[in-house]
């Protein structure tokens, strides 16, 4: 707010009035988003969770895969002193193999957040580009492109992933690819439907009559108009992707032990729910907090990008 230069009462009052070129859609959206406290709070929390996961392991001092069979599933706050005198507190306890839960949550968060954000990003990029093109071109192009999407839709996801892993071996990259390859399909359909409606609007015709080229119309006039639904769908995709990763890991196709992700941690925790509930409680808390924040940030973004919903 303080950065926006107020038009100073200038002595050159008789010159042509200085016209401030308008802020872009993004600057505008940012200004509106800043006023949405809940979204900003959740955004801050998300950043904190990301930093926590990626920087935290250096601070706790524990190795997420180091086992200690003397401390099986100890409750939060247990103090471990190694024979050499080093050690510290297990703030969130240990798992049945004596590994520090807090550090494992951080390590697992790295994997889950990466999968969630990268796969959604890939889905977003391909889905929006593909859907917008199909919707804009229409006719035979649309037919061909959407039938291709239908064919991919019909492929059973699990068989697809099993096929990939047997052919290329298990790797993180493959999970990104496989999930991205599935998630973009729905995105493409949503965007295509939206674009089909928009293309029939007169302002697209008007843009053509101004001499804009097809890519320019898509980028300037069509895609900003579909951002609302796209953003909401993306915030729904991130949790879906994280759950998919958890399911894959559960089947032994995703993250391999002793490595962890939030999905695998929650699975392990659910098995030990009766004896040591903190194994489920802490990873689940992080997982839900992340999804919660994503939803509010998504809502906030949608409102910020809708020029009609919130007036200046």
């Amino acid at each position, binding site marked *: 707010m303080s950065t926006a230069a107020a038009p100073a009462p200038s002595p050159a009052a008789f010159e*042509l*009035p200085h*016209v*401030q*070129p*308008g802020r872009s*859609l993004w600057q505008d959206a940012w200004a509106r988003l800043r006023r949405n406290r809940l979204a900003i709070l959740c955004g801050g929390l998300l950043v904190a969770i990301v930093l926590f996961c990626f920087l935290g392991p250096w601070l706790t001092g524990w190795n997420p895969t180091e086992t200690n069979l003397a401390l099986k599933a100890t409750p939060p706050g247990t103090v471990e002193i190694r024979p050499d005198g080093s050690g510290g507190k297990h703030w969130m306890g240990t798992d049945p193999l004596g590994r520090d839960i807090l550090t494992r949550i951080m390590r697992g968060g790295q994997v889950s957040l990466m999968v969630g954000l990268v796969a959604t990003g890939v889905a977003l990029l391909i889905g929006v580009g593909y859907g917008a093109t199909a919707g804009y071109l229409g*006719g035979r192009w649309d037919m061909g492109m959407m039938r291709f999407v239908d064919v991919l839709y019909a492929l059973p996801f699990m068989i697809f992933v099993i096929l990939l892993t047997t052919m290329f071996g298990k790797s993180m990259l493959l999970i990104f690819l496989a999930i991205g390859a599935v998630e973009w399909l729905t995105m493409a359909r949503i965007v295509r439907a939206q674009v089909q409606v928009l293309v029939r*609007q*007169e*302002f697209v*015709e*008007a*843009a*053509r*009559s*101004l*001499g*804009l*080229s097809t890519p320019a119309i898509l980028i*300037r*006039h069509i895609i*900003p*108009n579909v951002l609302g639904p796209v953003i909401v769908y993306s915030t729904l995709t991130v949790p879906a992707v994280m759950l998919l990763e958890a399911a894959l890991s559960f089947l032994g196709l995703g993250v391999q032990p002793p490595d962890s992700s939030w999905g695998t941690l929650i699975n392990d925790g659910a098995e030990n729910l009766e004896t040591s509930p903190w194994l489920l409680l802490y990873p689940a808390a992080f997982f839900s907090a992340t999804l919660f924040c994503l939803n509010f940030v998504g809502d906030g973004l949608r409102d910020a990008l809708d*020029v*009609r919903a919130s*007036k200046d």
Partner: protein
Amino acid sequence: MSTVLDVQDLKVSFHTRNGVVRAVDGVSFKVEKGKTTGIVGESGSGKSVTCYSLLGLVPMPPGRIEGGSAKFGDVDLLKLSEKELQRIRGSRISMIFQDPMTSLNPWLRVGTQVAEPLRLHEGLSKSEAWKRAVEALREVGIPDPEKRIHQYPHEFSGGMRQRVMIAMALITRPELLIADEPTTALDVTIQKQVLDLIRDLQKRLGIAVVFITHDLAVVSEVCDYVNVMYAGRLVEASPVQELFARPRHAYTQALMRSIPALQRKGEPLYTIPGLPPDLANLPSGCAFRPRQTPERQALCLTDRQPPLVEVSPGHWAQDCPGCLIRD
């Protein structure tokens, strides 16, 4: 008087599942610098398609330009590539549309949209273009343009939006403005203001205007020359006073009889019986025949389409014995 646009024998058809629709079938007209040429007709008479095809805005397929030429300066618009047309659209020929509520992008500030043709065709910097946009908005009578330019379309009324569209169309000082029913969606008082505005700007800037409308009252107000279209063809073309003084074709006369303001109070409004013909299978011969009164219907051509003849100097009408009324 220099001719800005010279359309000769334009033919546009749509190839659909239900056959070939001849939307425009051999239309010729000229547009003079500083003059307004009207194209009048019912819905589906081909008046909009005529103009869209000039700018390459007819979707192809299913649309197809079957023949003719449209000389604009020294180029034939119908023979240009999409790239070449893009350079002409919005810089030398601009267009305004029927519905100002939907022809502005709701997501972009008015200033961004008005400045867009300048940025695109003249490569101006953003601040330069915005300065010119403020001037353009002032020119079309938008009060307080420095403030309004930062607003979004939904903060403008219908009439104001149409003014914005006009500012946007004229900001590059085009040689030709195509106005596709620009006042149809506005209420009558606003309609008058917008018509006055278009006429004023045209006089001041000396541009040529093609004015598409179905409203004869509007025609009498703004046009210098009128083309009456029916079923994809011109049925009558004349200077405006001449047309209103002596309409020669039965269709033009019927149109004039349908103007509500000219009818006597208390009587049922006159309407032309029947519907415009299906352009996918036109009757051979006079297209207006099915809607004629029985005694005249018998006189209409049935074997061939009536050609245009010059009835009096500058006044052309379709030469159908049933429809053409000579002195």
